[in-house]
């Protein structure tokens, strides 16, 4: 068990390291001068040169990278223009946003969380519900309708659904305010009102694969011996489904959900763009456009951390649920 954990953690750290190196290289491969993106507006050549010095851009790449990594682990000294000393998880200073990158993240992470977490709950409920109904009513019109609905959702484009929803509920009917983010703790009603369209669109798109997955799993487990045994023992069908089949069938759904949520937390770029909400995804896209290296690095790393963590969690969950999985 311990061996597995250590091995898994090592490989995760190695992955994150590779992601950071790749991102670093990719940015410096950008043909534009990285300074222009990191210099405040209306930069004159002297200022440009000073920024270059401040950022240590004339240092060798390896040193720059080492400095960056050191900042994350222990914090590091930045120039006065970059807000002086930068505390332990130091991700650098963004000239574009004129703030420490950690502050930017602190601002946009709750936004993405507010989009993804309720949406994930919604799509899981919808997906599992549809899958359950279609598996139990296999071969009937209910089954076909549920799967048809799920496939329809999977075939829709988020921006298209979003556009239609916006047109209907915001612009035409006026039932909902223009989407935007309000902190949950300031005003829960406005928080929900501003995000509900994003949740619904994401749920509509994502639930499809869950419905199909859960249906397939359920049908498979219902055919397995232990379920038949449970039935033969005379357990009521609710107990058969509830206690035996559902638990076995939900495992892969949880797996996929973990990975999907992990990936979505890295930024729901399209959703945020469609509804004009400034979350992690939008921030990353803006940073790439502006050539804002510290922010790009941070957003990509955060996204990678979410994916890697989700991967590990799913593995651990598997260990907990299915003792047959070997601790290789």
């Amino acid at each position, binding site marked *: 068990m311990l061996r597995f954990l250590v091995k898994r953690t090592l*490989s995760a750290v*190695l*992955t*994150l390291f*590779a*992601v950071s190196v790749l991102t670093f290289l*990719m*940015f410096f*491969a*950008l*043909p534009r001068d990285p300074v222009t993106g990191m210099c405040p507006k209306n930069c004159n050549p002297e200022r440009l040169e000073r920024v270059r010095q401040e950022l240590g851009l004339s240092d060798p790449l390896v040193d720059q990278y080492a400095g960056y990594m050191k900042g994350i682990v222990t914090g590091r000294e930045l120039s006065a223009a970059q807000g002086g000393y930068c505390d332990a998880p130091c991700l650098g200073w963004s000239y574009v946003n004129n703030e420490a990158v950690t502050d930017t993240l602190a601002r946009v992470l709750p936004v993405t969380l507010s989009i993804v977490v309720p949406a994930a709950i919604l799509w899981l409920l919808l997906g599992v519900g549809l899958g359950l109904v279609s598996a139990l009513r*296999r*071969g009937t019109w209910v089954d076909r309708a549920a*799967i048809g609905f799920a*496939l*329809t959702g*999977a*075939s*829709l*484009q988020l*921006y*298209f659904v979003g*556009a*239609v929803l*916006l*047109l209907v509920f915001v*612009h035409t009917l006026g039932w909902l305010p223009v989407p935007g983010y309000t902190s949950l703790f300031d005003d829960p009603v406005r928080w929900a009102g501003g995000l509900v369209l994003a949740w619904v669109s994401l749920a509509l798109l994502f639930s499809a*694969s*869950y419905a*199909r*997955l859960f249906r*397939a*799993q359920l*049908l*498979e487990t219902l055919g397995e011996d232990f379920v038949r045994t449970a039935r033969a023992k005379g357990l009521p069908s609710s107990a058969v489904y509830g206690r035996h089949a559902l638990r076995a069938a939900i495992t*892969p759904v949880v797996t*996929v959900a973990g*990975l*999907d949520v992990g*990936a*979505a937390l*890295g*930024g*729901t*770029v*399209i959703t945020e*763009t469609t509804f004009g909400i400034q979350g992690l*995804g939008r921030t*990353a*896209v803006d940073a*790439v*456009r502006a050539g804002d290296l510290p922010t*790009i690095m941070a*957003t*990509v790393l955060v*996204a*990678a951390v979410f*994916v*890697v963590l989700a*991967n590990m969690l799913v593995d651990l969950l598997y260990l907990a649920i299915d003792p047959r999985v070997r601790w290789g």
Partner: protein
Amino acid sequence: MSLSPVDGTALVAIESGGPAGGSRDRRSVGRSPGQLAWLRLRGDRTAFVSGATLVLLVLVAFAAPLIELTYGIGPRDQFQGKLDGFGLPLGHAGGVSGEHFFGLEPGLGRDVFIRLVYGLRTSLFVAVSAAVLTAVIGVVLGTLAGYLGGWVDAVVTWVTDLTLALPFLVVALALIPTLTLRFHGQRDAVPPAFGVGVLIVIFALFGWTGTARLVRGQVIALREREFVAAARASGAGPGHMLFRQLLPNLWAPILVSFSLAVPQFITGEAALSFIGVGLTQETPSFGRMIYQSLAYLQTDPAFVLFPGVTIFALVFAVNLFGDALRDALDPKSAR
């Protein structure tokens, strides 16, 4: 977001072990498992309808120049005279008429129908090419990892994890302009074919993981089977092993991941255009059209509707057909 199309649903219900069960109808003389799957597919009404729709769309894409000829309007022809002072098309529903089946684009006044026909061509070309590349990369890496095991497997698995950990849209956003500028100067005109090529490469680079995983799992399961041992005992080399013994048993997962990849890449092309790094302005594409149309959401909703519905129909048909294909390939999941 993960671009890998196969990670979810497909990993579960695919088993290409061939139909189980002993004696079958005596008359089914010499029917290979593939032929049996084909028979099941042919008997499926949904598969027939979606398959026919797909064939039609592919034909339209292929025949785009022919359609242009009969339709009499090219994708770059502008009809400014049919727009009002705000650049919006005159007439109902975005200028739909006998001459312009789906109306006109606001602003430039180009014909929506013929642009959709060409957009279909672009989208299908990009998606299918990327899916083929994806399948090749995925099958090669998955087979190597599964068959050789050991450190090869460890490396492939790790690279898979790494690929999945990179946020696709952000990386693509950074990579596409970089690559473009590498090969073409700041002010050079970028040929449309180059944009298409870059897109395909990017999709393939990010999309192979699911196929690789699927194939790897399948190969590991097959490796333990005795027919593989029988070939080894006869002294079969790795070539015979991989191509003669294993590959014929991998068609099911390959087809399945292919059917999942195509709609994923159609969507991906549109998504990239949507955040502004898709294809160049001259190349008609679904994504770009939808992206442009969103600005007219309130003034010209018909312009949003036509591309949106067309891309939905395409993806829906592929998804339906893929679903039927999975059922046909996996007799266990028969309804």
